[in-house]
């Protein structure tokens, strides 16, 4: 079996988000970039499925050369090889288009992604890839079993979960629960340096959306402290002042 895992390079979760250039650009000064946590969990599941020589895992990233440490991390965790499409992501459609174009040249059984990237939070790339390839997609997957032909997945729905069955090939966007996080071991880190990383130039496509400006949330007003034995006072304020109950 052949699995493709899409990985994005995102600011570390502790990053305080600021912008430069009149709020048009994300300020990368001093920011550490990491493998998107959901992509890491998708990768972990892919590696588990291929364990014992049952298949190979390729990771793909659309990005400039600055994303290579993140790609090497994915190889250290256990991916077999990597592809980088050499372009700055313009929007989700652009990214999905590049990945779909690459996938068309290969025969992947599964294409796994994270449920969303923690920077753009579009949750757009996975379903776009599937539409471009005209194959099914299942989003927010919390469990994934695959026998080589048919997969059984559990996905999150409003107020519950749904178990579905679908034949490969398809795209699944993965969330917590789908696997245990894997920590790269010394052997993984050493071998990651020599695993193949292919760089491909981007295919031409249009950009369908553009971020013109960013805004940071308005600061909240100061907290009103209430004595621990005056819970009734809190209930009154929630009713009369905040008007939420």
């Amino acid at each position, binding site marked *: 079996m052949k699995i493709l895992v899409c990985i994005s390079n995102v600011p570390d979760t502790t990053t305080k988000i600021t912008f430069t250039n009149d709020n048009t650009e994300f300020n990368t000064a001093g920011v550490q970039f990491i493998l998107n946590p959901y992509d890491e969990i998708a990768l972990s599941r892919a590696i588990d499925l291929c364990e014992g020589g049952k298949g190979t895992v390729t990771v793909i990233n659309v990005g400039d050369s600055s994303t290579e440490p993140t790609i090497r991390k994915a190889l250290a965790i256990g991916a077999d090889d990597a592809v980088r499409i050499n372009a700055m992501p313009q929007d989700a459609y652009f990214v999905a288009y590049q990945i779909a174009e690459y996938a068309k040249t290969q025969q992947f059984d599964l294409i796994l992604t994270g449920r969303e990237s923690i920077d753009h939070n579009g949750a*757009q790339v996975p379903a776009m890839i599937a539409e471009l390839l005209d194959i*099914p997609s299942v*989003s927010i997957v919390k469990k994934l079993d695959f026998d080589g032909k048919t997969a059984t997945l559990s996905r999150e729905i409003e107020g519950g979960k749904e178990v579905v069955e679908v034949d490969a090939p398809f795209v699944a966007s993965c969330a917590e629960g789908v696997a245990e996080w894997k920590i790269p071991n010394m052997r993984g880190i050493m071998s990651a340096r020599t695993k193949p990383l292919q760089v491909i130039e981007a295919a031409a496509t249009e950009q369908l959306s553009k971020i013109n400006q960013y805004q940071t949330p308005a600061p909240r007003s100061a907290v009103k402290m209430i004595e*621990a034995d005056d819970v009734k006072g809190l209930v009154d304020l929630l009713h009369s002042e905040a008007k939420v109950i």
Partner: protein
Amino acid sequence: MSVLVYVENTEGQFKKSAFEVVSYAKAIADQLNTNLVALSIGQVANEQLSNLGGYGAQKVLNCNGIQSFDSQAYAAVIAEAATKESAEVVVMANSFSGKGLSPRVAVKLKAGLASGAVELPQINGGQLSVKKTAYSGKAFAMLALNTQVKVIALNPNAFQVKENSTAATIENFQASSATSRIKVKEVVRASDKISLPEAELVVSAGRGMKGPENWHLVEDLAQALGAATACSKPVSDAGWRPHEEHVGQTGIAVSPNLYIAVGISGAIQHLAGVSSSKTIVAINKDPEAPFFKVADYGIVGDAMEVLPKLTEAVKAYKAQS
């Protein structure tokens, strides 16, 4: 020209979030001076469908041919309806299903997509500018859509339901191209549970609760308020609570009217997913806990003592109001 709104049903019923998207789409149709057409997929009774008129839909397309949810088949129906109605803007909810759906619709229509919209768009000629969440709730982005057709997926709880009584005509709609390739084996829906992203009130608790055996205190308060329950990441990692309750940057993002955080320190990753809540209450025994910096109301105290008292006070308030 028109605005098309896809309205999701839950087992044949429209919930508040459905009326939110219709109200939002109606406001856009008014901005553009055009008609609002709603589309429903699945088995929904006619009287339910005509309820959509109450929020401004002039026409309701009813596609009851496909039973279970398959984003590929649904997207084909929505795109076909959009083409038939010459829709300039297609609106839907940024729900769990919507996240799998709106990108496919956008690709089919070669449309720019804004998912996670939190406000009405600004319209400049043929361009829409949509405010959406970015960086896990730590920021917003103004996204410009220049394409002929635009798709907007609205965040839950971001737009107020607005009644707008219109007599809606109901029309059957059968799409030609939709075939489902996904088989649904099982649906587990806790009917008494309020879905977290849509909840207006949320009671959330962290490691300060010490262990799962104390969670009844959290549930009692949630029940008294009619709130959903949530938790911090370490709590679900430890298996005290299920993963789907974990909120924050790597969990679910919520923006309820009221978020009560009990025994949660207020780490940046947690706050990322909850800071757009309208009102925040923090209960923590440590007066220095970072959560108090973003809270509107705070109580310094032991959760085990404060929670039962607060639950009683809420019950007393409910009884007299």
